[in-house]
C-alpha cells in the first residue's frame, strides 16, 4: 500500500502565447514532493523553474497555459482547476514565499493588515477583529520580528529587506499549509540575512511539518537546504535525486558543469597571484584611497548624520584585483563614486596613478576619465534598448579625439574579438542578447578607451552561474593580456575568492579588515568577516533537521563540501 505523495507533477507541459504563437517552456517535467520534504528545483534563468512553480499555485501569467500532464495534490489533479476553485486552495493548502521582498508587499497598507488579510479571507464569517489581530502579532513574533505590535502598524518601507521577507514568511505559514513554494526566497537579500531567512524556513518546516518547494538558481543553497534536488534546463529535467547523492556524484553533463561553475562548491583553487602583494612601493599603486570619509548633507534640519564612509584606506597595486566586500549600506557605492570623481568626499583623498582625483580640472579630468571605466551590475538595464550594439561600443570614442568612422568600426571589432563576441552582433539590439553576452558588451564598451583601471560594480551578480564563470574567466584573461587593474565590488564572497588578490571588508562605512585574499578567508580576524564566510551557502550539507527526520542514506554522511 502506498500513500500518494503530497505533490505529484506528472509530465507537465506549459506554453506561453508569444504574439499569437505558442512557445513551450516546460516540456514534460515529472517530480514529486512527499509530505514535510524539501525539494529544490535548480536551474538558470529561462529554465522554466519559476513557470513550473507558478502553475502549481495556479498563478501562471495570463498568456501561460498548461498543455499537458497533471499536477496532483494529495492525489487530486488540480491542473485544470478554474481560478475560483484555486482561491480556496491558495493560502490554505499551498502558499508562496516570493522572490523579492522589496516589491512583494503592498506599499500603501500596513504590515498588520497584510498579514491579517490571509486570515480574514479564509476566516469564518464574524470572526472578531481582536482574534485576527492577536494571531497577527503571534505570527510576527514567531518569524522573529522584534516589537511585533509596533511592526504591525508600520508600512513596508519602514522595514529592512530581511524583515519584509520575515513578514512574507509569516503570511505563508499563517494557515499552516501543507506546501510552501519558495521562489528564490533569498536571492535579493544580503548573505548574512539570507542565511537567517533560510534557517527560519528550516525551523518552521520542522515545527509545522510543511513541505517546501525551493526554487533557486543557487546550487549551494540547494545542497545545504534540500532533501532532494531537481536540476532543470530549458524546461526539461536533467537529473534528480537525493541532494547529497546528486551533488557528490552528478551523472548528467549539465549537472557536472553546473557544479563546477558554482564558486562556493568548487574545490577552492586559490587564484594565482599576478604580482607580489606585500612590499609594494607607493609608486606602483594604481589606486590609493587615504582616510576617505563622506557624510551626506541632510536636506532638512535632521541632526548630525553618521558618515557613510569613515576614514577608509586601501591601495590597489597596478595589475592586480582588489575586492571591496560589504552588504547593502556598507558604503561600497559611495566609495566607487569618490574614486571615479563623481562625488567629492568630505574628507580624505583618492589618488589614481598618483593624481589626486578631487583636484583634477579640465583636460586633466578628461584624460583621467579615460583611464578609469565602470562596468555595472545589471546588464539588462545598463544598455540602451534602442541603440545597436556597435553604436554603443563606439560611443565612448566620440567623446574624445575625432576618430574616423572606419577606424571606430575597426576598433569596435577588435574589442569584440577580445571579449569573445561574434562580429555579427554589431547590428543587433541588446534585447537579442543573453545576460552574459550583454555583460560582455558592457565590458567591451568600457575597454574601447584603453583604460588602465576597471571598476566592476557587482558585475557578475545578476548572471547565472554558467555565465558568471565565463565572465570571470574573461576578466582574468583581459587582466593578464592588458595589464588592467580591477576594483571588484561585490557582496558575494565566493566569487571574490576566485578573482581577487586582495580584499577589503566594509561594514557601515568602516573597514573591518583588509589583506591578501587567502589570508582573509583562512584566517579572518574580525567576527563580521567570519559571519560573512559562514553565510556562504553550500559550505555544509543539508541541515541536520531534515537528516534527522528522514532516513539518511549512507551517501549523505560521505558527502562533504568543506
Amino acid at each position: 500500500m502506498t500513500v500518494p505523495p503530497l505533490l505529484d507533477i506528472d509530465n507537465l507541459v506549459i506554453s506561453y502565447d508569444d504574439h499569437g504563437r505558442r512557445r513551450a517552456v516546460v516540456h514534460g517535467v515529472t517530480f514529486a514532493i512527499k509530505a514535510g520534504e524539501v525539494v529544490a528545483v535548480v536551474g538558470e534563468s529561462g529554465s522554466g523553474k519559476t513557470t513550473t512553480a507558478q502553475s502549481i499555485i495556479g498563478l501562471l501569467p495570463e498568456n501561460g497555459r498548461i498543455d499537458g500532464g497533471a499536477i496532483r495534490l494529495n492525489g487530486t489533479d488540480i491542473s485544470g482547476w478554474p481560478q475560483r476553485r484555486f482561491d480556496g486552495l491558495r493560502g490554505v493548502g499551498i502558499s508562496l514565499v516570493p522572490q523579492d521582498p522589496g516589491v512583494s508587499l503592498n506599499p500603501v497598507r500596513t504590515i498588520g493588515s497584510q498579514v491579517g488579510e490571509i486570515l480574514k479571507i479564509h476566516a469564518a464569517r464574524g470572526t472578531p477583529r481582536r482574534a485576527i489581530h492577536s494571531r497577527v502579532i503571534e505570527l510576527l513574533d514567531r518569524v522573529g520580528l522584534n516589537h511585533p505590535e509596533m511592526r504591525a502598524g508600520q508600512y513596508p518601507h519602514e522595514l529592512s529587506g530581511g524583515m519584509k521577507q520575515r513578514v512574507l514568511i509569516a503570511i505563508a505559514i499563517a494557515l499552516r499549509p501543507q506546501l510552501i513554494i519558495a521562489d528564490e526566497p533569498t536571492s535579493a537579500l544580503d548573505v548574512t540575512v539570507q542565511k537567517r531567512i533560510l534557517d527560519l524556513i528550516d525551523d518552521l518546516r520542522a515545527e509545522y511539518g510543511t513541505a517546501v518547494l525551493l526554487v533557486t538558481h543557487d546550487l549551494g543553497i540547494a545542497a545545504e537546504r534540500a532533501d532532494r534536488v531537481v536540476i532543470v534546463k530549458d524546461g526539461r529535467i536533467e537529473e534528480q535525486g537525493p541532494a547529497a547523492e546528486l551533488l557528490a556524484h552528478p551523472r548528467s553533463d549539465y549537472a557536472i558543469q553546473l557544479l563546477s561553475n558554482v564558486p562556493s562548491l568548487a574545490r577552492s583553487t586559490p587564484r594565482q597571484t599576478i604580482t607580489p602583494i606585500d612590499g609594494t612601493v607607493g609608486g606602483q599603486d594604481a589606486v590609493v584611497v587615504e582616510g576617505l570619509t563622506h557624510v551626506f548633507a541632510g536636506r532638512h534640519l535632521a541632526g548630525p548624520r553618521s558618515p557613510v564612509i569613515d576614514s577608509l584606506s586601501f591601495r590597489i597595486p597596478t595589475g592586480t584585483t582588489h575586492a571591496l566586500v560589504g552588504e547593502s549600506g556598507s558604503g561600497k557605492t559611495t566609495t566607487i563614486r569618490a574614486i571615479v570623481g563623481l562625488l567629492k568626499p568630505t574628507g580624505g583623498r583618492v589618488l589614481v596613478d598618483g593624481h589626486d582625483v578631487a583636484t583634477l580640472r579640465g583636460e586633466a579630468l578628461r584624460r583621467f576619465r579615460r583611464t578609469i571605466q565602470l562596468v555595472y551590475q545589471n546588464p539588462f538595464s545598463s544598455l540602451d534598448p534602442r541603440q545597436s550594439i556597435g553604436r554603443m561600443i563606439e560611443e565612448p570614442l566620440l567623446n574624445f579625439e575625432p576618430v574616423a568612422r572606419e577606424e571606430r568600426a575597426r576598433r569596435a571589432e577588435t574589442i569584440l574579438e577580445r571579449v569573445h563576441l561574434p562580429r555579427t552582433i554589431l547590428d543587433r539590439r541588446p534585447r537579442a542578447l543573453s545576460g552574459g553576452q550583454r555583460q560582455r558588451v558592457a565590458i567591451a564598451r568600457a575597454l574601447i578607451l584603453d583604460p588602465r583601471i576597471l571598476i566592476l560594480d557587482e558585475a557578475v551578480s545578476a548572471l547565472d552561474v554558467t555565465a558568471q564563470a565565463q565572465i570571470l574567466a574573461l576578466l582574468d584573461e583581459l587582466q593578464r593580456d592588458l595589464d588592467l587593474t580591477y576594483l571588484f565590488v561585490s557582496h558575494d564572497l565566493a566569487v571574490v575568492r576566485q578573482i581577487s588578490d586582495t580584499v577589503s571588508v566594509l561594514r557601515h562605512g568602516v573597514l573591518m579588515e583588509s589583506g591578501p585574499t587567502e589570508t582573509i578567508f583562512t584566517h579572518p580576524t574580525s567576527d563580521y568577516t567570519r559571519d560573512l564566510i559562514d553565510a556562504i551557502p553550500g559550505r555544509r550539507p543539508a541541515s541536520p533537521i531534515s537528516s534527522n527526520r528522514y532516513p539518511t542514506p549512507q551517501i549523505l554522511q560521505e558527502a562533504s563540501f568543506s
Partner: protein
Amino acid sequence: MTRYLIERIGQAVIVLWAAFTVTFILLHVLPGDAILIKFQNPDLGLGPQQIAEIRASYGVDRPLWLQYGHAIGSFLSGDFGYSIQAGVPVSESIRANLPPTLWLTGLGSLLAAVIAMIIAFAASLSPFAWLRALVRSAPALFVSIPTFWLGIALIQIFSFRLRLLPVIGAEGWRGLILPVTTLAIPISAPLAQILVRAIDDVATRPFVAVARAKGATHAWVLWRHVFRNALPPALTVAGVLFGELLGGALITETVFGLNGIGRLTQDAVNNQDAAVLQAVAVLSAVGFVVVNLGVDLLHPLLDPRLARKERVLS
C-alpha cells in the same frame, strides 16, 4: 509638513500674481475697448468730449502702470472694479453666477470620476476578453467627442426624441442632468485612460501575486491592493484637468442656456468688459491653485512613503 505647506502657499501666491499680470497686460494689448462698445452707439448721442469724461470716471485714461498698481491694490482689498456693460460691481456678478457653476463643475467632476472608475474596473473585471477590449476603447471615443456636439446630441435624444427631460428652463436637479453629463463625459476619458493604464501596471507587481497567493479573489485584489496604488497618477491628472473642466463649463452653459461664470465670461468677451475678464481669470487661477494644492496634499495620505520625511523629523 508646515514648512512644505508654507513653501507651497508661497508658490501659489507667485502663480496668482503671474496670472493677474499676464491677464492685465493681454487685456490692454488687445484692440477695442468696452467703453467704446457701450457708449459709441449713435442713439445715445454722446460726443467725444463726453466719452472722454466717462473714460476718466473709470480711470482708464491714466498711464498703464498706474492702472496696474491701482488694480492690484483693489484686488487685494477685495474690490474687483465695475462691470462697464452691466454697470454693477464685478464682485456682485460673480457672486450671482458662481453657485450654479460650482454645482455644474462639482457634480460634473464627481460624475467624471465615477465613469472613469466604472470603465477602469470593467476593463479588468469583465468576464470576456472581447468585452474588456471594448471597454478599453471607450475612453478614446469619449475624448474625441467635442463638448458642444455632445450637448446638442444629448438634447436631441433625451429632450426631443425621448421627451424625458425639458430642453431649457428646467428647475433643480432635472435641469442639471444633461449639462452635468455633457461636461463629465469628455473629462472622464483621460481619467479613465490613466486609471486603466495604472491598474494594468500595478497588476503586474509582485505584491499582487502575493495577495492572490493568499487566496484573495480577483475583485478583492483589484479593490484592496491595485486600485489604491493606481490612484496617485489619476489624481495628478485630475488636478491638471481642472482647466478642461472650466473650458467645458463655459461651453456647456452656453449650449444649455444656463447662468454661470461661463456665460458671464462669454458676455464679457463679447463686450470686451476687461474688469469682468480680469476677475474671472484670477478666480480661475485661484481655483486651479487650490485644486492642485489639494491634490498634492492628498498624495501623502494615499501613499505613506511620501509622508516618511516628516515622520522621521518629528
